[in-house]
């Protein structure tokens, strides 16, 4: 059964595991036993759920997109509104869970990596709330294109560490966060932002994100035919999909095609990648014939990552989830369309899911229904959007 994965070795079918330096093996074992204890502890779960409700603003609504549905003339479109969560994206669900665990383990220093800056902001936010110190590693290029989030993190009291290796994006930030963790693992907690990394991270992050799918199931008053979510590392997607894995619902994950999957500039890991090891996990990744990791590209910093969570690798291989890809231009069009149809400005990441859903919804019949996970809001992307939409573009 797909829902009973991973096994005790952290495997999802062939994927997952722990490919890390020996120094990190004991900290990972410590994390796993602390996590398993916490997840059995009523008080811990109560605290997690209370923070989600009273602090983060859960449950997030499920909004019927009536105008977009009418315009397209096909399936009914519902939006899961993670954009309305405190700090503006689904990332906070996971950050709250892990930060509470860090505290329970007696570690009051957290480190995090970030791409779009949403996970960095979420980590800085819970660190402030729970009284933890917070260092966020962020690629140079992402610091440039997500300037607003960099300022938010600093305002929240976090230290932002600029990473210049590689393309200066999420992969490089993650490398540096792991290196820092190797040196400081005794008193630091590494708060990973997606369902990537060595076991037990992919399982832990999924379990802290499954609230998205659990709520959707409860909120939906009719059958769902398809669910769409964008995939960077894959946390909003697995959070949405996991509770539906054993149901008769078609699940669609959308990767970033950047300038096109037939160009070298994309981040379509499953569409174009092959199995390999990245950041401690056996999964699919973008690499050359010698096993060197290839630099990805996407306009959206949150999807600009050459790997993907191992659970997605298995859902891809077993064909339980269908994975598609959307280009920069298609995503930008979807941002504009959603803004004008529903008065919701989505994050460019989320717009990848919206673009794919728009393509398919019109081909579906009126008595069908789809859900799109709107993983975050577009505020953080204003600088990028302003570069791309000239005055004429906004006509």
């Amino acid at each position, binding site marked *: 059964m797909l829902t009973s994965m991973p096994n005790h*070795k952290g495997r999802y079918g062939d994927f997952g*595991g*722990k*490919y*890390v*330096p*020996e*120094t*990190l*093996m*004991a*900290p990972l074992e410590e994390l796993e036993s602390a996590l398993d204890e916490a997840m059995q502890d009523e008080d811990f779960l109560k605290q997690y759920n209370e923070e989600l409700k009273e602090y983060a603003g859960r449950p997030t609504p499920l909004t019927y997109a009536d105008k977009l549905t009418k315009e397209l003339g096909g399936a009914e479109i519902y939006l899961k509104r993670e954009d309305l969560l405190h700090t503006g994206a689904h990332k906070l669900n996971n950050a709250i869970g892990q930060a509470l665990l860090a505290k329970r383990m007696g570690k009051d220093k957290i480190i995090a990596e970030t791409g779009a800056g949403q996970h960095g902001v979420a980590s800085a936010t819970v660190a402030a709330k729970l009284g933890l110190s917070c260092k966020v590693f962020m690629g140079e290029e992402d610091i440039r294109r997500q300037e607003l989030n960099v300022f938010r993190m600093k305002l929240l009291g976090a230290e932002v560490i600029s990473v210049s*290796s*590689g393309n200066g994006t999420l*992969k490089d930030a993650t*490398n540096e966060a*792991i*290196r820092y963790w*190797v*040196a*400081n*693992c*005794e008193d630091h907690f590494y708060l990973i932002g997606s369902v990537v990394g060595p076991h037990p991270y992919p399982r832990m992050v999924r379990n802290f994100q499954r609230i998205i799918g659990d709520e959707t199931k409860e909120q939906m008053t009719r059958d769902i035919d398809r669910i769409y979510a964008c995939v960077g590392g894959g946390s909003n997607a697995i959070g949405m999909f996991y509770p539906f894995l054993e149901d008769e619902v078609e699940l669609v994950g959308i990767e970033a095609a950047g300038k096109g999957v037939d160009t070298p500039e994309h981040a379509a890991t499953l569409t174009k990648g*092959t*199995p*390999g*090891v*990245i*950041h*401690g996990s*056996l999964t699919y990744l973008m*690499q050359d*014939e*010698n*096993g*060197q*990791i290839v630099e990805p590209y996407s306009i959206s910093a949150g999807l600009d990552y050459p790997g993907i969570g191992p659970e997605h690798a298995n859902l891809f291989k077993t064909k339980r989830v269908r994975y598609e890809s959307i280009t920069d231009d298609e995503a930008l069009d979807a941002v504009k369309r959603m803004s004008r149809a529903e008065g919701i400005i989505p994050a460019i990441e989320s717009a990848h899911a919206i673009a794919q859903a728009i393509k398919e919804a019109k081909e579906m019949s009126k008595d069908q229904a789809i859900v799109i996970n709107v993983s975050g809001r577009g505020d953080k992307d204003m600088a990028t959007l302003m570069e791309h939409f000239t005055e004429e573009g906004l006509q």
Partner: protein
Amino acid sequence: MMKQQTLFQGKLTKQKDLFIPFIVAGDPHPDKTIQYALRLQEAGADVLELGVPYSDPLADGPVIQKAARRALDAGMSLRKAVEMVPELRKAGLNIPVVIFTYYNPVLQYGHEAFIDALEENGVEGLLIPDLPLEESEDLNERTKEKDIELISLVAPTSEERIKRIAEQARGFLYCVSSLGVTGERKEMAPETLSFIEKVKEHSSVPVAVGFGISSNDQVQLMRKHADGFIIGSKIVKLIESSLEVEKSGDEQEGLRHFSDEVNELVQA
């Protein structure tokens, strides 16, 4: 009954005071790697750790990251690094060679083809820093069949894992001196020595200490407390400075400078 010696053990001339330098294959150019390897042998190296450059080396600090970048830009790969070993032999390198590589290039090569290539090219050992005991079963079996040592690492965090890892260690046991990635350390933490003691209790192969060793004082300390010492970042730095010397003089002068510096670093 005496256990039969492995190829690696047969080539080791001693069991203590092992000097194990690390260089990145192809840094800054394959021909240069051969020159440096020979100079290191002359300076008394007992084992050569030949590093394969990787795009995303998680266990490495900035010095080795930069060397890897130089080597990758010069076209180095896992395949080419392994195929370099016969050339090293031809040029006169007799000491055992351990290929140091991250796991992903091995996975792309294919376990079987890779171990065959190690055997064909006369490589005596293999070290994969991101392949812990739990994930190494298949390669462990395959290397044993071909009489190649799969070197294990223990770290200061290993604690209860030390016994398990040390008891099955082959070739030599790589003892990570302190938390963190590769790179020079000004001082060795006092806990390092008790950690080495503990590892030696459980190990039947020589215990060599690496990560951060960069001065003659540290070398002396390791001579006293461990069976060997591994020097990586510092050797790479010496290569960098020999290249600087070369720029203003000739190649021989650069190499001479390198030898002098290495001799000074490891002198008794």
